[in-house]
């Protein structure tokens, strides 16, 4: 039977990691401010910095993953009209790793960076551990097609993971998708000539997820009560400092009912080609729902229980939006071709349910609102509302203010009108650092030997919080300096100069420092010229000279101090660079 095939696969991934960190002292030359030599030049003194003596850390990891699967396939086309594909399979993935690390310092010399040369003193330490994982999946797919007009597909996965307790190990995740090429219908071909191709698509699918991390730790075995030992530096020292005793801690309260997180993805869309295939349009609308998200009830369980909480399948979130793409291309005469495209998307997510801190005012709630910038610290998106600057002492006295406020400080709004500025006057900001609307324009033009291409890209709907380390420890932004309050300039739009976080309006998050990062950017533009065919007489197959620019123009009206595409609000990241290149490409 040619339609039936059986396949078996075995794959082994083996990984070896080796990391070596060699740290040596460095020397800085400093002037003490007074000592000068005979010629009046400052005398620089060499000082050791960083480490007193070299230190070596070595870490190794040996891991492997073995994948075994078997597939059964059946493909058949009946009378060139119906096609049926059937696939079923089983897959088993097992893995494991071993880790070892060692550390020594007080090397006598930097000549050899090998572990044997380090001191065997009280700083010597080593560590190691291991782990194993296993997953077992049964899956399959059925496809049906009729004359390339009606298309249908059904997939399923029945997945099992070692992470969960026996009764929750397996989850069943099906999916179905349908396609209808309407333009193949006779009524379409006869009546609607302008649209050459039109396909409607819809799909519904469910997937499962088991690898959940909190604080960079994989939440496996949450159904067991386990106890862990801390790494180096967490021993209980006794016997006059001589004995380092292990200290064992309860890793968490168990939750026997952990199981797969589920996600349902639904979408509808269409693809179309019009105007003699010059114009192509695609559009998709999607609505995804995640449920049984593993989340901890830290917000609502009192700290007096002292529990380290396990993940529980309580969370639900949703994300919906659309994206589209429109591309038009054409040829004018013999020499000029062009293609212009426009694409974009909009997506907004929301929390349907999770653990919410009780007693919060309605304007601070997270449920029903977009996912906070950092879901582990949702309070970071609560901001005091900055409504102005206290011009003088009379202004301070006239309005509820933070304890100890002075002229030149930012006025926080008394949102709940209770005469006191406290945590209940913070308002949740719905925007995060993920834009909701993104889009771009691409264009390509060709005229004889010239070619011009460009990409304009933009995003809107995101915000970023600016917090520079200014004062004794760093500089101020020019924009802050220009707008600051002083006694001579009391009507300024910005607050007084501050030192580090020693003002309540620096230490408490407020929306004075919150900026929209909406931007449009000429991401790249390239103009080139290819030499015409006669160059071939010289033995050159192709010669092209070009000039291009990246990030050439940026427009971000609300965010001028840092690069809008860079997340960092402390100014400590390297911004995207504006680059202009010129070049030549020759093919012989």
């Amino acid at each position, binding site marked *: 039977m040619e339609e039936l095939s059986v396949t078996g696969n075995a794959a082994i991934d083996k990984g070896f990691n080796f990391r070596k960190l060699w740290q040596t002292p460095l020397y800085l030359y400093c002037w003490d401010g007074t000592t000068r030599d005979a010629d009046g030049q400052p005398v620089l003194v060499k000082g050791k910095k960083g480490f007193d003596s070299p230190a070596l850390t070595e870490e190794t990891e040996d891991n492997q993953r073995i994948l075994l699967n078997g597939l059964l396939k059946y493909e058949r086309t009946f009378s060139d009209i119906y096609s049926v594909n059937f696939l079923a399979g089983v897959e088993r993935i097992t893995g494991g790793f071993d880790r070892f690390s060692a550390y020594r310092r007080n090397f006598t010399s930097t000549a050899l960076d090998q572990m044997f040369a380090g001191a065997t003193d009280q700083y010597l330490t080593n560590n190691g551990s291991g782990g194993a994982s296993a997953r077992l999946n049964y899956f399959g797919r059925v496809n049906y097609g009729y004359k390339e007009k009606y298309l249908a597909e059904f997939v399923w996965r029945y997945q099992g993971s070692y992470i969960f307790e026996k009764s929750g190990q397996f989850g069943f995740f099906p999916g179905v998708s349908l396609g209808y090429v309407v333009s193949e219908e006779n009524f379409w071909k006869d009546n609607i000539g302008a649209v050459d191709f039109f396909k409607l698509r819809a799909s519904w699918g469910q997937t499962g997820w088991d690898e959940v991390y909190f604080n960079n730790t994989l939440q496996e075995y949450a159904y067991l009560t386990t106890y862990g030992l801390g790494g180096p530096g967490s021993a209980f020292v006794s016997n006059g400092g001589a004995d380092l005793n292990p200290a064992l801690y*309860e890793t968490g309260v168990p939750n026997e009912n952990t199981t797969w997180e589920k996600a349902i993805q639904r979408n509808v869309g269409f693809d179309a080609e019009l105007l003699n295939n010059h114009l192509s349009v695609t559009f998709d609308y999607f609505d995804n729902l995640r449920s049984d998200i593993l989340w901890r009830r830290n917000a609502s369980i009192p*700290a007096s229980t002292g529990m380290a909480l396990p993940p529980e399948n309580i969370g639900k979130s949703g994300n919906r939006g659309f994206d589209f793409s429109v591309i038009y291309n054409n040829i004018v005469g013999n020499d000029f071709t062009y293609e212009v495209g426009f694409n974009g998307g909009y997506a907004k997510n929301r929390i349907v349910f999770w653990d919410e801190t*009780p007693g919060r005012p309605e304007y601070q709630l997270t449920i029903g609102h977009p996912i906070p910038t950092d879901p582990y610290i949702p309070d970071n998106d609560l901001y005091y509302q900055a409504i102005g600057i206290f011009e003088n002492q009379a202004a301070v006295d006239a309005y509820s203010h933070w*304890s100890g406020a002075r002229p030149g400080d930012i006025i926080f709004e008394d949102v709940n009108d209770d005469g006191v500025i406290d945590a209940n006057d913070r308002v949740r900001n719905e925007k995060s650092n993920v834009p909701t609307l993104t889009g771009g324009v691409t264009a390509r033009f060709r005229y004889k030997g010239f070619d011009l291409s460009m990409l304009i890209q933009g995003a809107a709907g995101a915000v970023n919080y600016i917090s520079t380390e200014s004062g004794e420890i760093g500089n101020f932004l020019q924009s802050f300096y220009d707008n600051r309050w002083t006694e001579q300039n009391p009507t300024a739009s910005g607050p007084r100069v501050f030192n580090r976080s020693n003002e309540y309006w620096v230490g408490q998050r407020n929306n004075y420092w919150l900026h929209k990062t909406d931007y449009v950017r000429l991401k790249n533009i390239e103009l080139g010229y290819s030499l015409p065919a006669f160059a071939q007489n010289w033995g050159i197959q192709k010669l092209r000279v070009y000039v291009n620019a990246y990030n050439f123009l940026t427009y971000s009206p609300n965010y001028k101090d840092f690069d809008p595409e860079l997340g960092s609000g402390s100014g400590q990241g390297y911004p995207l660079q504006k680059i202009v290149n010129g070049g030549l490409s020759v093919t012989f």
Partner: protein
Amino acid sequence: MKKRIYPILLALALAGATSCDTDILNQTPLNKFSDAAVWQDPALVETFVNNIYLGIPSPFHTIMLANLVDEAQFNADWETGNVTKSQITPSYLGVFDDGFWVSHERYMTWNSSYKNIRACNLFLEKIETVPFDNQVDKDRLTGEVLFLRAYFYHGLASFYGGVPILTDTYTLTDDFTAPRNTYEEVIAFVTSECDKAAALLPESADKARATKGAALALKSRVLLYAATDLHNSNASWAGGYSNPELVGYTSGDQQARWQAAKDAAKAVMDLRMYNLYGEANPANPEEASQNYADIFLNNGNSEDILLQFNDNLRNANWDAPNPGLFTGPNGWHNWGESSPVGQLVDRYEMSDGTKFDWSNPAHKANPYENRDPRFYASILYEGAHWRPRPADVQAADPIGIVQVGSYTKADGSVVAGLDTRKGPIEDWNGSYTGYYLRKFIDPNIDHQYNKQTLPFRRFRYAEILLNYAEACLELGQEDEAKTYINQIRARSGMPPVTESGQALVERYRNERSVELAYEEQRFFDVRRWMVADQAYQDATGVSVTGNIAADGSISNRKYNVIAIQDREWDPRFYLLPIEIDEMNRNNKLIQNPLY
């Protein structure tokens, strides 16, 4: 056809083999111990208790508790300035906040204490079924855990007053709300736990672990705090608070409590296990200073009751305990934090027992001469001889003398001292107060690179004698009190006190603040004596000027008192507020007064 069978059969066999074995999904962790393994093995049970000791935070942290009272000031602020202006509220906890980016204080308060209490409760639930080879070890570990739980509840009572007394562990499906017990109930619970622990603990054992003496010492401290005015004032300071039983006693006799405190201290003394370290009567002031300094510069001595070590050498975090680096002067490439304020320095008497006074011209001209020997062991001041400077600073100061002033050269130009905020070395790490901490710090280590590992004395015998003396004073037994106060003074070469009445009480309080400086007592002392309104006046420091010669020697020093940090007192700060989110999670809690 036949040849095709074999690969097909192989593939089917492979599929069969992989699909039938679902047992592989039942794995066990390789990097953690199981519940069953731990509670069947006495050795693992002991390691579980070890971890509870680590719940008592080491005071050798960046933000020492001393910064929050009239002992020290934190040069980088980090919101300590807000705390000392009594600006803490249920919504704004500053350094006490559980999520504060760095701190020592959050490990002493609500969330952290209850985590450790849970570990104690878990142990006490499971210990009965653990098979020990001998009962003595089981009793010892049980006694240690009872001590530790009492310690954490004592911490909670000192910061908050009455708190929920929870002795069972919770599971995910329990009702988590619990009301606050009264202050009286908490103190009674703590003292009865101390008694139970003392009965099970050995008298003589490794001082890093709880012993009978430690349990009785804790009882002495707890009863002393409970007998003092703050908790016996019927909450008169609390502005008509409707639940005075949560913050103090509402009935009974304060004198009876002083008697209980006296008896508790006596019980420690009667063990005859401990004595004051060093020569009882040092020959000269230098020896007296060294006596006092040396109490803290060894790994355990006869005065120690409970020692707190830390595994900081192997801890790569920058904020692992490292007192020398954190508090040393910036001219030694250290960070100048938790620097002593003028109020603390001025409390050190003259060596003849008279009070130091800036308005006395002789004192003002040479403020650091002929002072209490403990001053020279605890404080680094202008002109103090510390340790050799780092190699790159040696040229400017070959000997190692602290320079906190600004000095005029022969040509009239002014040069800033090496350890000032205008000096040439890491000026942002200079102290505002003109002083640096010397107590606890090992002079033989270059703290730039190496951490010292000396333990903190969580309980020491000097405190017990002071506790005993205070209780005697409050009971009117002045001679008995003076005997023991003078023992402490004699060890440090100071003449005996001879006052009586309120003057004697003042002398005693001064003695306690000097002897136990930076030992996490003053924060609670100023509150329980209800003198916090004087303690939270603006912090002072000293400003020094002088002349500097070509060879670097400094002369003609002049000293002036300066105000260096605004502080303010609000009576609500006698106790900490319960965080607003915790109040909302547990609706049976009642907030502390005036918040």
